[in-house]
């Protein structure tokens, strides 16, 4: 039995087959793997975006906390960063004493971010109450100052001569920039 197919039809079938195979191959070898990559990348991007949002939220919370702390402890932060100025100290606290003299500031200790300087103080007070008032006032000073031992009170006529050591603590993070003003 002989099948008679027109030559034109054979061309038609051949072109159809060729195009069909091309479409199939393109789809399975190129398009579908690319589609898989697209899905994978989309999921990855979604996960990363979610993580970034979390980071951003945490960053905002931390920033708020830091700003609150900076606002709340502004005085302390400024005090730690301030250079100790003996002349200004004398001017501010002279009213508590009949006379007030400070020795040269000396570096006494450094631990991690803080440096402690010591200054010996000689003063005359009319009554111990002046010294109590000074201790109250020194807590509100422009520097972080701790009054330390040894402390000595000696009667000197109508006045009391007092000698004590003060420890000035400052932030040593940028010590190179911070130069203590010497007497």
């Amino acid at each position, binding site marked *: 039995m002989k099948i008679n197919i027109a030559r034109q039809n054979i061309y038609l079938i051949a072109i159809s087959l060729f195009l069909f195979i091309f479409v199939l191959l393109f789809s399975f070898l190129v398009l579908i793997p690319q589609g898989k990559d697209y899905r994978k990348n989309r999921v990855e991007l979604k996960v990363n975006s979610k993580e970034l949002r979390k980071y951003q939220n945490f960053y905002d919370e931390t920033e708020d906390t830091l700003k609150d*702390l900076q606002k709340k402890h502004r005085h302390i932060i400024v005090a730690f960063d301030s250079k100790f100025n003996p002349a200004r100290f004398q001017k501010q606290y002279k009213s508590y004493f009949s006379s007030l003299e400070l020795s040269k500031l000396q570096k006494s200790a450094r631990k991690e971010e803080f440096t402690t300087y010591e200054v010996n103080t000689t003063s005359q007070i009319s009554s111990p109450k002046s010294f109590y008032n000074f201790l109250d006032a020194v807590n509100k000073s422009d520097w972080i100052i701790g009054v330390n031992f040894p402390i000595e009170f000696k009667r000197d006529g109508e006045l009391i001569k007092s000698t004590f050591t003060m420890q000035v603590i400052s932030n040593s993070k940028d010590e190179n920039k911070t130069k203590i003003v010497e007497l």
Partner: protein
Amino acid sequence: MKYSYIKPRPKTAFTSEVKLLLTFFSITIFMLFSTYAFLLFKDYTFAKDLKHIQHLKAQLKIELSKMKDDIVFIERENVLAQSVQTKNLVLKDSITNLFDLVPQRITLSRAKLQKNALILYGITPNKDVYNFMLQAPLRSIFHRTYSSFYPAGNGWLRFVSTNYTDEELPMLEGELENED
């Protein structure tokens, strides 16, 4: 010589079937390539966005770490400042208590406060006043108390009271010493 009365149709490779077929495949291929181009473009934008997100994340991480350090540092500063302020207040109370401890009949001429010791110089009308009114309370505070007397010109006695504690006085203990 003419064999037919009808005009012959011009023969062409693009018959209506071929045209239909080509149109169909053209649309299919166009759609396939469009999809492929779309996927390529999206992959490119995803990669770009991912890179941007990772860059932002790295930046946020660095800034977060810096902020955390700042928070820790401010908290340390605050703790240290509070301890210094507390120490000053405790010192004030200690000195107030010391002067309150001295009775009216005894006059102090000198007082030395040290980390583990208190040395008092003064005059007392007699030993009994000193022993009952000053030494007794001092003994309750300090571990070791030594007293010595010298006659003063007016019949009173000059005294030197040296008092030691084996440990640092809790009321006089300071945070700064620990910092050293």
